[in-house]
C-alpha cells in the first residue's frame, strides 16, 4: 500500500491535502513519534475516507491517540453541516456514550491502603462485569423507557443520584432529543439486565490517588485538594443496548441506501443524510442509548458510594463521595462552532475523543465556568491517568475536542502470547497496585505495554493547547471485568 503523503504544518500538526474524493483536508494532531505509529496501519486512510463524507466542515480530524477503527478511526472527530450533512454510526462507535467519570473521596491513600484488598472485593461484588450474567438492578419495560428518555433524571427520582451529580455531567446526564421508541425491542432486551454492570475488555473501575497537582486553582474547584487524596475513575458505556442500537441502524442504513453503500470505501462508513427520517431516527435512538450509559455510570457511582461506606464506615459516608465530571467519548452532538468566521450548527461526531469546551462556554457547569470543562484521560491498567480542562484553542483547532486515552498498539492475541496474567498481576503488585479481575487472561490482554504511552498522548494535547493539564492521578487498585 502506497504511503499517504502527510505534510507538516507546525509542531504536532500534520495535514493530508485534499485529493481524490476528499471534500476537506485531513488534520492530524500528533507528535512525530505518534504519527509514525498511525502510519503502520490504515488509520490515516480512514481519516481520508471521512474527509470525503457529505457536508463535512473544515477538516477531518485525527488526534494523537488515533488508531484503526470501523469506518472512522478511533480518536477521530468530524463535524457535519446540520442541514446538508450526514450522521453515521461508524463515527460514534458500537459502544455509544462510552465514557469516563471521576469521583472524589474524603479519604487519603494512607487510610485506604490497609483495607484496599477488601475494598476491591466489595466493589467487584457490588459492580459485576455482567457478561452473560445479571445486574443487581432489573427494570420493567416502563422503567427502561424512562431511563432511555430521561437518563440521570430517572436516577435522581429513584434516589440513585444527587442534583450535584447531574450538574457535573455532560448534558446534565440527559440528552435532549432522546427517543426511546426508536430503540428496537432487541436492544432493550439486551440492556434490561445490564444497568450497573461494567462489561469487560478495556472497561474498568480504578481507585486512584492524586500524584501531582499542576493547576491548583482548577483542581480546587473540582474538589481535588491534596496529594494522596483518593479518587475513583469509572470507564464503561451503554453495554449491549448501545451495541445493538449501532448494529440495528448500520443494517437499516445499508438496506435503505444501497447506492451510497456501493460507493463507500468501507462498509462501516454507511451514513444517512441528517435530515432524512432514518437519520433523525438514529439520532433519537443514539441519544437514548447515551442516556442509558450515563444512567449506567450513575448506578455504578451509587454502588461505589455504598461500597466505600461498607468498608470505611463513618470515615466515608455516601455524602463524602463527590463527582468531578462525566464525559462521553463516543457520541455525536448538535453544537455551534465557528466555521470560516461564522457560527454554524453542526453535528460533531467524536469517536474516541473527548469534548473539551473552554471557560465561559454555556454548555459547561456553573462550577467550572472559570476554569473550563474537565477532561479525563484514563491511562492503561497500571499507568497514570490525567485531568485536563478544555480551552478556546480546542474550539479553534478541533471542534472543541481532545484525546480520550492511550490507544492500543499491540493486539490482544500477541499480548496473550507475550504476557501471562499472573505475571502482570505480580508486576503491578510490586508497584503497589492491586488488581481484582474476573480472569487472568483478561489481565494479560490489557497489560500496560499494549498501549501507547499515555504521558506522550497527553503532552501533545497540553503543548498544542487543545486542553491544559490540571492533575496527574496514579492507580492503587483496579477492578476489571
Amino acid at each position, binding site marked *: 500500500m502506497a504511503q499517504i503523503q502527510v505534510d507538516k504544518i507546525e509542531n504536532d500538526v500534520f495535514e493530508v491535502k485534499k485529493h481524490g474524493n476528499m471534500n476537506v483536508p485531513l488534520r492530524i494532531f500528533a507528535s512525530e513519534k505518534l504519527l509514525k505509529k498511525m502510519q503502520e*496501519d490504515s488509520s490515516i486512510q480512514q481519516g481520508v475516507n471521512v474527509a470525503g463524507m457529505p457536508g463535512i466542515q473544515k477538516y477531518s480530524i485525527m488526534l494523537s491517540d488515533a*488508531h*484503526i*477503527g*470501523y469506518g472512522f478511526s*478511533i480518536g477521530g472527530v468530524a463535524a457535519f453541516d446540520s442541514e446538508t450533512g450526514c450522521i453515521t454510526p461508524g463515527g460514534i462507535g*458500537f*459502544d455509544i456514550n462510552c465514557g469516563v467519570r471521576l469521583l472524589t473521596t474524603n479519604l487519603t491513600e494512607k487510610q485506604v491502603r490497609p483495607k484496599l484488598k477488601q475494598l476491591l472485593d466489595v466493589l467487584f461484588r457490588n459492580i459485576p*462485569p455482567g*457478561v*452473560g*450474567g*445479571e445486574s443487581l438492578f432489573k427494570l420493567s419495560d416502563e422503567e427502561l423507557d424512562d431511563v432511555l428518555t430521561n437518563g440521570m433524571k430517572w436516577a435522581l427520582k429513584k434516589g440513585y443520584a444527587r442534583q450535584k451529580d447531574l450538574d457535573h455531567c455532560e448534558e446534565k446526564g440527559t440528552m435532549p432529543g432522546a427517543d426511546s421508541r426508536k430503540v428496537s425491542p*432487541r436492544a432493550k*432486551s*439486551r440492556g*434490561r*439486565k*445490564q444497568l450497573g454492570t461494567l*462489561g*469487560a*475488555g478495556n472497561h474498568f473501575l480504578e481507585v486512584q490517588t492524586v500524584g501531582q497537582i499542576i493547576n491548583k486553582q482548577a483542581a480546587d474547584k473540582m474538589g481535588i485538594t491534596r496529594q494522596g487524596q483518593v479518587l475513583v475513575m469509572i470507564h464503561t458505556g451503554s*453495554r*449491549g443496548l448501545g*451495541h*445493538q442500537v*449501532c*448494529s440495528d441502524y*448500520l*443494517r437499516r442504513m*445499508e438496506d435503505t441506501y444501497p447506492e451510497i453503500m456501493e460507493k463507500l470505501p*468501507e*462498509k*462501516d462508513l454507511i451514513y444517512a443524510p441528517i435530515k432524512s427520517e432514518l437519520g433523525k431516527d438514529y439520532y433519537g435512538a443514539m441519544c437514548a442509548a447515551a442516556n442509558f450509559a450515563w444512567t449506567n455510570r450513575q448506578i455504578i457511582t451509587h454502588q461505589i458510594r455504598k461500597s466505600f461506606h461498607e468498608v470505611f464506615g463513618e470515615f466515608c459516608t455516601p455524602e463524602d463521595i463527590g463527582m468531578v465530571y462525566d464525559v462521553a467519548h463516543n457520541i455525536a452532538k448538535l453544537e455551534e462552532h465557528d466555521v470560516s468566521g461564522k457560527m454554524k450548527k453542526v453535528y460533531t461526531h467524536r469517536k474516541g475523543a473527548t469534548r473539551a469546551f473552554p471557560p465561559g462556554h454555556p454548555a459547561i457547569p456553573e462550577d467550572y465556568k472559570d476554569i473550563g470543562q474537565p477532561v479525563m484521560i484514563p491511562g492503561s491498567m497500571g499507568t497514570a491517568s490525567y485531568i485536563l480542562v478544555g480551552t478556546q484553542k480546542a474550539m479553534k483547532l478541533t471542534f472543541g475536542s481532545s484525546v480520550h486515552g492511550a490507544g*492500543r*498498539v*499491540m*493486539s*490482544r*492475541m*500477541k499480548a496473550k502470547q507475550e504476557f501471562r496474567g499472573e505475571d502482570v498481576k505480580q508486576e503491578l503488585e510490586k508497584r503497589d497496585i492491586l488488581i481484582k479481575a*474476573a*480472569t487472568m*487472561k*483478561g489481565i494479560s*490482554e490489557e497489560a500496560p505495554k499494549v498501549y501507547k504511552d499515555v504521558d506522550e498522548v497527553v503532552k501533545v494535547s497540553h503543548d498544542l493547547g487543545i486542553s491544559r493539564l490540571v492533575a496527574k492521578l496514579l492507580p492503587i487498585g483496579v477492578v476489571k*471485568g
Partner: protein
Amino acid sequence: MEKRFKYLEHTADSKFQAFGKTLEEAFGNAALAMFNEIVDINTVRCDVQKSIEVIAKKKTTLLYEFLENLLYLLDTEGFLLGKILSISIKSDEVEDRSLSLNAVIAGDSASGGYEVIGAIKSVTYSDMIIDEKHEKGVMVQVLIDI
C-alpha cells in the same frame, strides 16, 4: 462437525478466519471462534439446546446477523455456545431469492461456574470475507469489536 478456526493479528480487536467444507460449516465454525473469545468452548457443557433462524438478502448480512443473534442470546439469557448441532442455509428460489439460515445449537448458562474471559461489543463488517473458492473449501473472515 470439525472445529476449525484461527485468530489473526489485529491491534485493537479480534479477527479470525473460520473454515469448512461447506458454507454452513464455515459459518458454524465462525460462531465457535467468536464464543471462544468469551469462554473456552471446550469446557462448555451442552445441556441446553436452542434454535436460531435468520433471514437476509446477502451472505455477509446473513453471517453478521447469525453471529449477532448469538450475542443476543448471551446478553438476554446468559447463553454460552458450546456446539453447533445442525445448520442449514437455503435460498428462496421462488420469491425474492432471500437467504435463510436455520441452526440448532447447544450450550449452557453462563451462571454454571464458567471462567468468562472476555466480552464482545459487536460483530462488524470490517474486513469481512466469505470465500467459497478457498483451498480448504469455504473460508469466512470476521472482525469483532471487543
